[in-house]
């Protein structure tokens, strides 16, 4: 295991007034397994923040903990000043937070149209179907296809598309590029850039930092359930060696 390097900047350095999401000492458990050991980070409005880390570091668990779909959690997660730690998942979703899970969570017995229209509109400002089809033209052609009959890329597009309709302004995308062809990864990259331009705030979980570098404003490196480093995209080149060590690439 590589030696854990000292962070050049404290993750807390980015803490400032005007953050949309503030995570403090977040701890989570799967049954008896203690997964997160005090996560600290924040996200500002309109940013794309990426959590980087190896498998099992706790990135996905962090997203699930923010969303409230994990057995036990403690610490503090504040979204727009509201504490989420004791809130149920459906209420968290209604605040405008949406999760696009790693396994995509497409409902197999529903077709594309039904999957798209299923999530409740939680607040105004969601994308219209026209805008969604402009982002993902493939979906328009596959409206009547069952969820299971889509390719991996199409499933990923659908998983992202359906949360855009809900009016959620804070999107959490869990490894959206995993297992996809380069051309689809490129399309997803364009989509994230476009969403950022339109004012969405995005918390991205990625192992592929080459992809992340095309869209992210800032990075946090997660290891053993903690944020061990953080830097801005502008400092990526300077931190590349460290990043290689952290991620073991």
């Amino acid at each position: 295991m590589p030696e854990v390097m000292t962070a050049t900047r404290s993750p807390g350095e980015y803490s400032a007034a005007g953050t949309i999401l503030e995570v403090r000492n977040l701890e989570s458990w799967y049954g008896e397994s203690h997964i997160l050991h005090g996560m600290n980070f924040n996200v500002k409005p309109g940013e794309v923040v990426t959590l980087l880390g190896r498998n099992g570091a706790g990135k996905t668990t962090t997203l699930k903990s923010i969303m409230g779909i994990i057995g036990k959690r403690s610490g503090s997660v504040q979204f727009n000043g509201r504490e989420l730690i004791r809130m149920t998942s459906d209420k968290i979703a209604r605040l405008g937070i949406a999760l696009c899970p790693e396994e995509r969570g497409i409902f197999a017995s529903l077709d594309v149209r039904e999957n798209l229209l299923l999530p409740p509109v939680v607040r105004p400002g969601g994308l219209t179907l026209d805008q969604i089809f402009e982002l993902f033209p493939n979906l328009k052609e596959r409206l009547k296809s069952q969820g299971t009959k889509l390719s991996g890329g199409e499933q990923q597009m659908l998983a992202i598309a359906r949360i855009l309709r809900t009016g959620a302004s804070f999107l959490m995308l869990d490894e959206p590029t995993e297992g996809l062809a380069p051309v689809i990864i490129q399309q997803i990259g364009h989509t994230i850039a476009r969403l950022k331009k339109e004012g969405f705030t995005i918390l991205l979980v990625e192992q592929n930092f080459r992809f992340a570098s095309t869209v992210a404003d800032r990075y946090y490196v997660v290891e053993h359930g903690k944020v061990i480093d953080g830097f801005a995209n502008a400092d990526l080149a300077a931190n590349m060696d460290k990043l290689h060590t952290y991620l073991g690439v």
Partner: protein
Amino acid sequence: MTSITDETLPITPRAVRDEMIVFVIMAALLAIVPFTGLYPFFVMQALCFALLACAFNLLIGYGGLLSFGHAMFLGTAGYCSAHALKVWGLPPELGILTGIAGAFVLSIITGYISIRRQGIYFSMITLALSQLLYFVYLQTPFTHGEDGIQGIPQGRLFGFIDLSKPTTLYYVVLVGFLAGFLLIFRTINSPFGEVLKSIRENEQRAISLGYKTDQYKLLAYILSGTIAGFAGSLKVFVAQNASLTDVHWSMSGEIVLMTLVGGLGTVFGPVVGAFVIIAMQQYLAGFGQWVTVIQGVIFVACVLTFRRGVVGEIAHLFKRSL
């Protein structure tokens, strides 16, 4: 570019069209039954059980909740209707409404208790509640214990439809069955039904999209219990009695069997399953207790060889939704 909105998206996919065509064929076939020489009592009884199985299927097939106590709705509505008709002397329409109301109230109470549990725990709680109710009905004077309520008057529906005539009663039961079936059909093809399916597939995901899934499940449970109660009320007019058999756990088991044989999660499966099981009981009655053994063999054969059930296998073969 043509504007695409929620309203202009296709609302009648091929699956629903197929199902509507089969529904019309089924309704037409059932409508000509009195002219075929088939024993109407058998078909009426099968229709009541078919509606009951459809109500059960709404919960397990679309909501993923296996209730092992659905007989309590059948029995409770039966007792309520029978009491209202025989003791209070209410007309048939009010007798039916009393039964439905009884099942409705019961489903709210039992649903509230059981709906927060999942899987085997939900099944066990519903079984325990139905057994509890069985023993209550065994002791309560108004049910007449093991004798049950016998000789229930059929009366005149709305004052002019004479239910003592078998053909008239048949069509009333048929209309009741079709109405209940259409209500379930509409429910599973509505946005509410889609949310139910999403809960069945991945409840955690449905919650994280912003749905209060317990509320949806409770609503489905109440709807299922109330429709099962409607089936119980109709059955009172057919059998002219209400007995403990309808609340017994073995009746809940039969409902599960009917749904599995016909096809879990299919629209028409429970109807076919109910007809198969009732036909077996009717035509194999000469074998006495062996009917139960034969049912057991069929159940095992069904699970081992065609797990999708009769309708499920046909639908799979023709790649259609039925």
